[in-house]
């Protein structure tokens, strides 16, 4: 014992006598590195970039299953178990925690991109075009984040560089026009910086020039449709049920659009033209036909199932996909669980899974042979309590045991071959898509299903919509038919339409083609028909409140921003 004590005395005396206090009080990190330790090399650039990319999979984006709720749920088509819809899904924006995650995550993405750009710019051991390509990707993320913010919240603060570099921590809100101006500015940079798909340096699966161009076209289109005044549309919708609770089929609603707040100054015709031209740039370099996935070139994938197969991820039609790592709490997304359901080892669907489906009204938008519902919707499923279900009810005989003749008819037509499958009712009676179903392991809540942020099919639909608005119905119909052709939908003729009916039809085509890819809520808003369409429903089939008021046109800012930012002292009107 004594010996040990003496050693300690000696050790202490040594510390004193060498006067090494400075060293003894040095703070040594073990489990992280400091920014200065990042190198100047292509590998380091990749580390910086992956750091930004990882943001999408964390916290308020997809980790806590938050992001796609505000992004997807506040619209007419989506439905499911109503307990899942108690926040943004039923207009409760004031108290919605989802919106905090939504806002914070988008700004985290912006903040990280802002922080990384100067570091990449100062690298000397990486080729310039590689650096530009990387910065182009960051600009793309920033532009998308602001686009997503401005559509949801209206005026928002513009953070253009990082607080780490001295940007004020409290930024006031910039007007809608200023935000769009900045989005366009950085998207144009991005467009010039990113590699085209045909560039030998382009890496498969990454964001390309074509994605930036399509995003820019989408932004123009958004500005144009929001700014257009007095236009008419027909939307299929209306009440889902009558007073007795029986389901009703949709009716055509004639609506006059409102001008979206903040878009008043936008010249609609001009921005429709810009949208058309920008989309055209992508179409011009794309494969005009249907392609198999092997090629990296942009183009429509040859059929609906291939489009959503694992092999197609990040290729051809998929201009921007967010990838996932199955099973991981940090990197796995719950898209399969949300949209398709989670399954046990016997392939039975777990109760409570798959809360995000589409309504009968949506299903009724299709011809019955359209691959987007024939292949794109889950028709036959078994619950884990062994209840056997078929969706939709209308494709099954009204009785539970059809006569052999009818059975045969449905069998050849829809593949309905087992009379023990009763039609799904209640909140199981919803159209669940198959888009997120080709995954490695369906028994996991977090699968490897990627999120399809942007597809070439949308480029074509943007083009079609813009072309129609600048009075080129023939061009519009031709591109629209490309999309329809792939899904075996009957082609339409220019002669079938006038400007208003084609406008309505293209919007409906977006509803069909891009369902549950994060577009419908924003289409309703940008066309200024959100309140008209939602209020025509009231409570939907599953008793989800779809009625909205004026204040719902903008989301409520999260309280953390108002309390944390001295430049913002009040919320959006009504919140």
């Amino acid at each position: 014992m004594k010996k040990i004590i003496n050693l300690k005395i000696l050790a202490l005396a040594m510390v004193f006598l060498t006067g090494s206090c400075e060293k003894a009080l040095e703070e040594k990190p073990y489990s992280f590195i400091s920014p200065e330790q990042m190198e100047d090399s292509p590998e380091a650039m990749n580390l910086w970039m992956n750091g930004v990319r990882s943001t999408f999979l964390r916290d308020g984006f997809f980790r806590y299953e938050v992001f796609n709720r505000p992004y997807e749920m506040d619209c007419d088509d989506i439905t499911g178990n109503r307990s899942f819809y108690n926040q943004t899904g039923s207009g409760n924006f004031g108290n919605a925690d989802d919106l905090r995650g939504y806002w914070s995550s988008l700004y985290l993405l912006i903040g990280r991109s802002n922080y990384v750009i100067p570091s990449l710019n100062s690298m000397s051991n990486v080729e310039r075009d590689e650096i530009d390509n990387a910065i182009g990707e960051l600009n793309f993320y920033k532009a998308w984040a602001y686009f997503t913010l401005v559509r949801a919240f209206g005026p928002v603060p513009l953070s253009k560089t990082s607080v780490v570099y001295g940007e004020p921590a409290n930024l006031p809100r910039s007007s809608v026009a200023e935000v769009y101006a900045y989005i366009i500015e950085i998207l144009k940079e991005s467009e010039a910086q990113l590699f085209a798909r045909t560039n030998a340096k382009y890496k498969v699966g990454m964001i390309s020039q074509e994605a930036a161009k399509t995003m820019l076209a989408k932004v123009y289109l958004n500005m144009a449709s929001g700014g257009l005044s007095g236009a008419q549309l027909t939307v299929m919708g209306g009440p889902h049920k009558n007073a007795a609770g029986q389901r009703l089929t949709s009716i055509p609603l004639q609506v006059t659009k409102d001008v979206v707040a903040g878009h008043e100054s936008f010249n609609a015709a001009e921005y429709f033209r810009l949208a058309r031209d920008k989309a055209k740039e992508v179409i011009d370099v794309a494969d005009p036909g249907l392609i198999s996935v092997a090629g990296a070139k942009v183009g429509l994938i040859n059929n609906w199932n291939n489009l959503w197969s694992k092999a197609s991820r990040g290729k051809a039609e998929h201009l921007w996909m967010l990838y996932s790592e199955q099973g991981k709490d940090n990197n796995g997304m719950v898209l399969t669980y949300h949209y398709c359901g989670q399954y046990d080892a016997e392939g039975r669907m777990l109760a409570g899974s798959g809360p995000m489906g589409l309504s009968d009204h949506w299903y009724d938008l299709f011809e019955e042979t359209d691959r987007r519902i024939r292949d794109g919707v889950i028709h036959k499923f078994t619950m884990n309590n062994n209840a056997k279900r078929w969706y939709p009810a209308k494709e099954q005989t009204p009785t539970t045991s059809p006569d052999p003749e009818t059975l045969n008819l449905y069998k050849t037509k829809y593949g309905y071959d087992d009379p023990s499958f009763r039609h799904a009712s209640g909140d199981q009676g919803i159209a669940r898509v198959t888009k997120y179903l080709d995954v490695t392991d369906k028994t996991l809540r977090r699968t490897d299903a990627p999120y399809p942020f942007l597809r070439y099919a949308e480029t074509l639909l943007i083009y079609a919509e813009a072309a129609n608005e600048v009075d080129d119905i023939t061009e519009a119909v031709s591109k629209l038919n490309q999309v329809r052709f792939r899904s075996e939908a009957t082609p339409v003729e220019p002669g079938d339409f006038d400007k208003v009916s084609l406008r309505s039809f293209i919007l409906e085509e977006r509803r069909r083609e891009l369902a549950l890819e994060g577009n419908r809520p924003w289409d309703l808003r940008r066309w200024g028909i959100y309140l008209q369409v939602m209020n025509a429903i009231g409570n939907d089939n599953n008793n989800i409140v779809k009625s909205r008021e004026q204040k719902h046109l903008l989301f409520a800012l999260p309280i953390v921003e108002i309390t944390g930012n001295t430049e913002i002292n009040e919320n959006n009107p009504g919140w």
Partner: protein
Amino acid sequence: MRKSEGLLKSGQCTERHKTIDRGKRKTFFFECLPKVSGYLLLTLTLSLFICYGAYSQATAISVTGRVTDTRGESLPGVTVRVKNSTESTSTNNNGIYTIKVPSPASVLVFAFIGFDKVERAVRNNTTLNVTLQESNSELDEVVIIGYGSVRKGDLTGAVGSVKGEDLVNNNPISVNQGLQGMIAGVEVNRNDGAPGAGISMTIRGANSFSGSEPLYVVDDIPVTSAGISGDAGNSADDAKQTVNPLAFLNPQDIESIQVLKDASATAIYGSRGANGVVLITTKKGKVGKDKVEFMVNTGVSSITNRLELLGAYDYAIRGNEARLNYNRYEDGTLGLLWPGRVQIDEATNLVSYKPKPEDFLTGVPSGSLTYPEGFTGTDWLNTILRNAVSQDYTLRISGGTEKGTYSLSGNYTDQQGIIKRSGYKRYGTQLNIGRKVSKLFELGINTNLNYANYQMVKTNTVQTQSNVMNDAMRYAPTNVFDDPYSDLREEIAAASRISNPYKSVMNMKDETRSVRVYTTGFAQLNFTPSLNFRQRFGYNYNSNERENFYGRDVHQGRPPINGRASEGEEATRQLTLESLLSYNKKFGTKHNVSAVAVASFEDANRKRYEIKASGFPTDINENFNIGSGLVQQTPQNRKEENSLMSFLGRVNYGYMSKYLFTVNFRRDGSSKFSDQNKWANFGSVGLAWTASEEMFIKDLNMFSFLKLRTSYGSTGNQGINPYGTKYQMISVNAPILDLVQSGFALNKNNMVDQGLKWETTYQTDLGLDMGFLKDRLSVTVDVYRKRTEDLLQTMAVAPTTGFETRLTNFGTVLNEGLELSVYGAVIQNPKFNWKVNGNIAFNRNEVSGLQGDQFLRLYTGMESAMVLRNGQPIGSIYGMVEDGFYDNEAEVRADPRWRTLPDDRLKSKIGEIKYVNVDGDAEGVISASNDRTVIGNTTPDYTFGLTNTFGYKRLTFSFFVQGSIGNDILNTNSLALRMGERDNFPKFAFDGRWTEETAATATWPRLTAGTNREMFFSDRNVEDGSFVRLKTVNIGYTFNSKKLFASTIYVYGSANNLLTFTNYSWYDPDVNSFAADASRRGVDMNAYPNSRTFNFGIRASF
């Protein structure tokens, strides 16, 4: 004298140091360092000569004798001293002493702790037998203060003390638990009622946002403790279960506890003294016969307060009413939940009879496939509770001679929790050895080895996570206990994170094994009786290893998950080295000087790891083969390190024990701050005037003791995590197509403040100690004012910055308070005595200097439930204010809030909560951004404790009442009461629900099957948390007969938490889910309920 020259040198060093300007101070220190150590070595050598000289005096007369107590028993270890001389000795095991005195005129002083001092002139006696009387006065007690000890009567600071025997009277399992209500100004909160759960302590009000827990110092060395890692089912940041940092100490091993409260006492602990200091001294052996002590305590506990929930009948009525309301007010589809007819059961897909409410009164009729005949409901809370048995054994052997002492104790504690499969076990030993090798050299070592096992059930988690208390409340009473379809039903319930509480408890495992090695030791060189050098060291290792498994029967692990397991460990290691030079000398008869100079270095590191997986082939291996899981989570680990270097000194000067003066200085350097702010100075001055020594006070004949104390000084706080001044690039992986790639991203947690610095508390204290009637009654009053500046706080920043929080200094907290302690021996009669010991403390707290409101997050979804606002106290709750309910459409229409609501939807707001439009905007907008205000405060107005002890012959009876008045509780549990169609809830909410008939008296909104009800966090969720509790009742009898094999046997029975008076609606008002976080005190989040315990025990000594 050469010795004093040495001291002067050190004084000069300190003096010079003080005068040097700020910029040069650091460099000076490094120059000064070798000098300090050189000085130490020099003194060391010099002293060797001095002390050899000191022991060669010649003496004249030898006096011997025996010292006994009033019962005639020998008193070993009594100090016998020749007055006005350095000559002293102590009595041996038989109470015999021998001392040499210079002349017959000499006076011998006999002193022993707990006895009145006796002075006897020698005259011509060579034998002097003395009887000492047990003293009422505690003034002569020697109390441990930081880096030294002092006679209690000579204290200049505010120090509260508790003796070991008083501590164990209330049968605490842990030391800090035992302090609840014992000392004025010391507020002890249980985090919850779980065995072994964390306990937090605040001394004189919260004054820091980075933790207001005091510094715990055990046997002279500060304690650090490991936290616990996360578990498989939940994310780590939301796990609020805590373990007690002082659980390793057996209260039976405690000699005394001193709580240092004012700056005069705490400044010696400098940068860590701001929250007060708790000095704990373990029992050492005493000179005398070997002593064997055996203590045993067994107890039975049950829940103190049961929340009354709905029975199956009420539950079913409620389900139907919710559906009817939904249809009536919100156009929802009608369909009774409990129709009393045959239909398809939604969970099982079986065609079966679904009962009507009345069936649960009479018993479900036969023929239902999914309910057994005669079923009347299940009380789920009952299925997880039990009468818990606890046992606690301590065996101690101790003894010693003048050459040295030893004490060896072993302890086994097994405390069952009142929730099944929860409990706490402790196996501990404490070995304290002291040895005087020679007059020159002595050493001592105190070692505590402890192993504890915490078996936890999931409680005290945030409301967004599953939790057994929440499960027990919400799981439907209409579910059958041994339901064969339980899995299917639970899956439906699992969407709202509820699972079968019984299965949750029985089929999950959550164990934490805590290993603690706590060694402190010293070697001391006594150069002269008045000068010594002590080298202390402390090594403190604590590892908490957590194992976690959710089997296939609980929803976290149910197929297709196929079991979920995790293991993790958090370990801290801390080495402390301290060199002390102490000097204590009386000059003449009037001047008394004591001084100490210390250099100290502390290095601590913390490591943690965590591995998790799911998808196991079988439940058999539990968490012991994590590699066999098909779904592996990324393993995580982390290491942190920090160090603290300090130089400190203190001088006490006393003039005739009448005027007392203390000055403290400490300079601390911490690794946690950036180079510009690494070092800081702290210090204090204390003055005391023992007025009762003045003739004019003596002449009053009123006071037996009267002392006025005052002190002023500064202390600091550095209770932040390491690396607070560094930006961190953290490793994050990102999948690109099928390939997962490495990445680094800036940690969003901290927007770095490079200028981060120490938080400083300036405290003024004025105290009065009064003794009356020969100290039979003593009263201590203290008033204080504590101002804490540059608060270290993690403030929320706007998310637009890309960061969440910023660790920075700003704001000021002022605490002002009054403390009163009374001790009285009301009746002192050989046969009957009655003692009262009470304390009461008032504290006011106010925040200032903030640029704007700062909000505190409770958990995801409760981002700003508490506020720090200028002029308001810490612990202010922030939310909406309610104004009853909308009773009819006209009332809805009249409210501008609903002006745009279409007519056909007005009715949907009837029976809903009306909120006050606090900002009064014309549009009537109700919004969390503008309509919240301060709706409560979790800080009590005052807290008190009162112990009455009665003795009749050998029978003792005591009771202890403790209370906290004026504090609110933020009850997050009531946020779950959304009055929906499912999920059980307390009966008071059901009884208070809004209906058209009860509109006038309703306290809760109407029932509804709808899910889009908007309920804000409001004054509904804030409750008065005041309580008065009969904490302990104890009755005991002492057998004391030589005929028995033991010399004394004390047998007792006691009851804890017998009665509680409170208006709090939930389980227990003594709850604190955020543990040591002072800014979020008084939050109840599914706390483990408190228990009432009946104990029986024996303490025997041989």
